[in-house]
């Protein structure tokens, strides 16, 4: 599976940050926290760290939840970008149909499926 950054994930986050001020503020604070962690532990900025080092920083920030909700918001926004991408859909087998014309007919329902239930007798209460 491709990385989120390879299928437009970063551009999506930038677009979201541009139109959603609270998300932008959280993202900026979160990136600062990641960078601070990286410099403290790995002696280099987050952007210059290895993937494993970046993952450690993410895990630390997620565990400390400072800034609150940052990793969850980032994770959800990345999922929002990644799994709305038709390239990814092909890889996971998701089929998206659209437009004003019918693309399939429905399988018929076999009434025999409810034969047992039909025989349960009245389950509702009669009233006056």
């Amino acid at each position, binding site marked *: 599976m491709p990385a989120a950054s390879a299928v437009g994930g970063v551009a999506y986050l930038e677009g979201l940050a541009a139109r959603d001020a609270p998300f932008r503020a959280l993202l900026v604070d979160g990136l600062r926290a990641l960078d601070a962690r990286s410099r403290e532990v790995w002696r280099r900025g987050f952007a210059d760290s290895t993937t494993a080092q970046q993952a450690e920083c993410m895990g630390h920030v997620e565990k400390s939840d400072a800034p609150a909700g940052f990793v969850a918001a980032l994770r959800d926004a990345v999922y929002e970008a990644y799994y709305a991408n038709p390239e990814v859909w092909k890889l996971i087998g*998701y*089929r998206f149909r659209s437009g004003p*014309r019918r693309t399939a007919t429905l399988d018929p329902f076999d009434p025999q499926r409810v034969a047992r239930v039909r025989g349960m007798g009245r389950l509702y*209460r009669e009233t006056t």
Partner: protein
Amino acid sequence: MRAEPADVVVIGAGAAGAALTWRLASQGARVVCLEQGDWHRPGAFASERTDFEAQLRRGNETFSPNDRKRPEDYPITTAGDGPAFMVMWNGVGGSTVHWEGHFPRLHPSDFRAHQLDGVGADWPVSYGDLERYYDLNDANIGVSGLMGDPANPPRSSRQTPPLPLGRSGEALVRGFEKLGWHWWPSDNAILSRDYAGRTGCDNRGRCNFGCPLQAKASTDVTYWPRALASGAVLRTWARVKEISVAGDGRVDGVVYFDRKGTLQKERAKVVVVCCNGIGTPRLLLASRSRLFPDGLANGAGAVGKNLMNHPSRYIEGLFAEPFETETFTGNPFFSQQFYETDKGRGFVRGYSLMVYRPFGPVSVAWGDSAPVPWGTSHHREMRRRFGHSVGIAVMAEDLPEDVNRVELDPAVKDGSGIPAPRVTYRASENTRKMLAHGAAAARQVLEAAGAIEVMDSGRVANFAHYMGTARMGNDPRTSVVNAWNQAHEVPNLFVVDGSSFATSAAVNPTSTIGALALRAADGIWERRREF
């Protein structure tokens, strides 16, 4: 020379307003409907976009007006232990534009909760009073389903056959069959075949995000074309400020802001409020006058009280077997095994179990009880969940309580300066016991069906069905409208929508809203000379 007042002015073009307008206009009444929003073009539906799932949380098509903030929306503030999740659509078709189309009817016992179980209130109408209007409403919009359900009274032939169960539905049926419990194909306001010039469903799912096929019966594609052809007038971008009262205590029209923000008055012999269980009490409370200082039709103080919203739990199962990897129409079947009261369960009244499938891959990744983790295990876990999950929602009957209510927010106003509604809500002890029982039952089904894991966030959500806030009843001291949806205090004022429900039952309300609207229209027409 001043124009003659309209015979009837209807406020709100949603489920109730559309049906009532059509019924009256088709009989010859001069009807004007005022709608604060606009038509929604099918090509603009979020369902047509690849980012449709993002609209669950953000964007101008999202379900909550508080997040959407479109010009036609008004803010809704919340208070209390469990603020209701606010969902509605303000436009032609109302929330039927975004609903899922579940179309069950109330049970006969739902109209007699107090008489049978000593709780809630009895409706001043019975199932029998509404039955022919249920049938008429079904025929007008087209319902898919199957006759013969032993949990419900016999009903007329459904217009189209049931929606298919799909592989995930078949798996859950296995569970219900193993337990020997009730289940039945749902009545859905979704055509499984072509009907009345509309195209049948192709099971592409995403119904909540708008149906470009018009297989889903939103009233902008069902009632409104017929109502307009019958001569009804629909004014969009008309935001009602208040209902005006004449010196004799009768209403004489409606004051509204037009699209340019200019105040206008539409004079009327009869006014019908169809603004949903939040918007209706808001408007009645905002319509204060010398004769009605506490709000219109609120002499008993019942307007805004007894809010019910169908609290819910959602339990999801993961299965080893592969299910569909595309979205499917939401609710193929339901169970009412625990619908009628059995006091041995520790609570009164009951609930429905409803099968649900994920919206799409983003929703699966977000997770309901827990997100798919980021990092090295992500794709492995996503493969385990995507195309392998199905869930059961518990829809509990919410009992009417004074403490759950809609009031006017003292500080927050909409863009036109009209006070926002403030919603206060908490789930009762009875409701919580019912939900816990329902969650355990759902888990039992999923396990019997062979789920390899059952996921349960424990979170109490709700179905955002707003009911009870201008309820019907025979006693003017405890209710707002009578059996014909006519205000006790104001003879030419009617309220028809979820707010007029005396109790909530444990089923989706829209088919009953439609039936009440058609019946109220007939009542107005038959007594038109009184107005």
